[in-house]
């Protein structure tokens, strides 16, 4: 157990840094750049029951201190992920990986998770009920506590692996969704997914994204993400994985003080492929600055003042 190690649902991570789903592919793009075993783990590309091409392009737009994406869950489908991607991954990553799952019906979720449950490489199932990109899809589950709880129960019924629900920030009351998921048996929560946003092209007078709207990520969303992590971590007793605009070791520390047991890094990987490695390398010096001996000591430390 080093200074950086943390526990996530019973599995020890060497450090809390986790590339977020959709920004790290299935790992091997980055394995060509550095040894990805330095990561705590990573959450692989959102996987669905059936193969998906995703949304039409353009899928990407620039934003102030961030970006919009409407990739729309492009993935080869769970069977191919298991038969082709995971074997490739095994060659470059020896740690348990986080399997990110999306679906369009409760059955989809259960089907996909049941198959991934059999894969020993998979340490956690991160169930995305919040992808804002797919019409009538993921969105609806994550915005309704009952629907989210339904997904949790269906998934828990088919797996013994820890189930982490990934929540959408596009709601009035994220705490109620979080509590419903905990009650339904979720082992952890991860938040925030992207904020629904949009840009228009002044020349064509049309949306820049072919899908009209897309998810905003990057530093721009960090204060909103931190607020929601703080609120949720203060309300639930299961571990919370914080994400949303994290791009430095200091951001990781701030998220953990807010209550995150681990931290996912998303958009930063796309502007700097070495972002996560740099953050991990920077953490010890950053911890020294603030007199932090072990990262695990500060989880939720930002709530201590409330009791005084």
């Amino acid at each position, binding site marked *: 157990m080093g200074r950086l190690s943390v526990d996530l649902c019973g599995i020890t991570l060497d450090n809390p840094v986790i590339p977020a789903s959709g920004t790290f592919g299935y790992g091997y793009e980055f394995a060509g750049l550095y040894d990805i075993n330095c990561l705590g783990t990573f959450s692989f590309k959102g996987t669905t029951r059936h193969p998906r091409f995703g949304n039409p392009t353009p899928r*990407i737009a620039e934003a102030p201190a961030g*970006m919009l994406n409407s990739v729309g869950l492009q993935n080869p489908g769970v069977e191919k992920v298991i038969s082709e991607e995971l074997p490739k991954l095994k060659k470059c990553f020896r740690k348990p990986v986080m399997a990110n799952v999306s679906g369009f019906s409760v059955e989809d979720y259960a089907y996909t998770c049941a198959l991934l449950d059999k894969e020993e490489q998979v340490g956690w199932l991160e169930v995305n009920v919040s992808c804002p990109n797919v019409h009538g899809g993921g969105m609806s589950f994550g915005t309704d506590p009952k629907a989210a709880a339904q997904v949790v129960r269906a998934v828990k019924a088919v797996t013994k692996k820890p189930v982490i629900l990934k929540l959408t920030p596009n709601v009035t009351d994220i705490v109620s969704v979080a509590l419903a998921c905990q009650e339904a048996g979720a082992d952890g929560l991860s938040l925030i997914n992207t904020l629904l946003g949009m840009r228009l092209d002044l020349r064509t007078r049309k949306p820049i994204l072919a899908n009209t709207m897309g998810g905003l990520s990057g530093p721009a969303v960090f204060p909103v993400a931190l607020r929601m992590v703080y609120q949720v971590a203060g309300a639930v007793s299961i571990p919370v994985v914080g994400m949303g605009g994290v791009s430095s070791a200091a951001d990781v520390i701030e998220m953990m003080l807010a209550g995150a047991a681990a931290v996912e890094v998303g958009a930063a990987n796309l502007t700097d492929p070495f972002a996560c490695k740099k953050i991990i390398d920077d953490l010890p010096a950053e911890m020294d600055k603030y007199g932090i001996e072990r990262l695990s000591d500060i989880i939720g430390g930002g709530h201590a003042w409330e009791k005084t």
Partner: protein
Amino acid sequence: MTVAENKPLTREVYRMVLKGDVSAFTAPGQFLNLKLEGRFLRRPISLCDLGEDSAAIIYKVVGQGTAQMAAMQPGEKLDVLTGLGNGYDLADAGEAPLLIGGGVGVPPMYLLAKRLRAQGKAVHALLGFNKASEIFYEEEFRALGCTVTIATADGSYGVRGFVTDALPKSYSYYYCCGPEPMLRAVYKTAKGSGQLSFEKRMGCGFGACMGCSCKTITGYKRICKEGPVLRKEEIAWED
């Protein structure tokens, strides 16, 4: 990398030379990805020329990002990812390849022409622009020993019309880079086989985000990774 040169070629088109490690580049048609101060996403720009320790790019000022680039001074440092994408395969060129470039699709054709000339090929460069005042690099292609045809949409120079109005009778193979309408027109009109380079809004530029995916006969491809160059035979036009 460090900006060594940054000069306008026309009113809107600039040429920038960057000094630094360029060992990652393996073929013409590849691109680099620039991080600009205050912009979140990198700017992908295709390689125009390559030196021992320098890379030349040509870009058009269209938005705030490129305007920022145009204002950069020699000596300024830039965070650059190099050697990105899958470039042109010279093996198919044959003896008399045709290189078709339109607007900012012209630059990658320059390094390609240079390499093909080095192999002693008879290179015909067919370059399309909107009007005479927007033409650049005509002399540079001639200096490589290419035969050059210029087409201008308004007829203010060379052949009036699009590159497809100036296709030569015979060539061994073609390489093409330009705006999508031009790619479609060339794909439909040009005889024989070729390779075409595509442009799409990218997230990362190195294959991670699936932001620039497209459908092809041989499956889904990432323009930034398996592309930007695709073979005519694998292209499946969306819509």
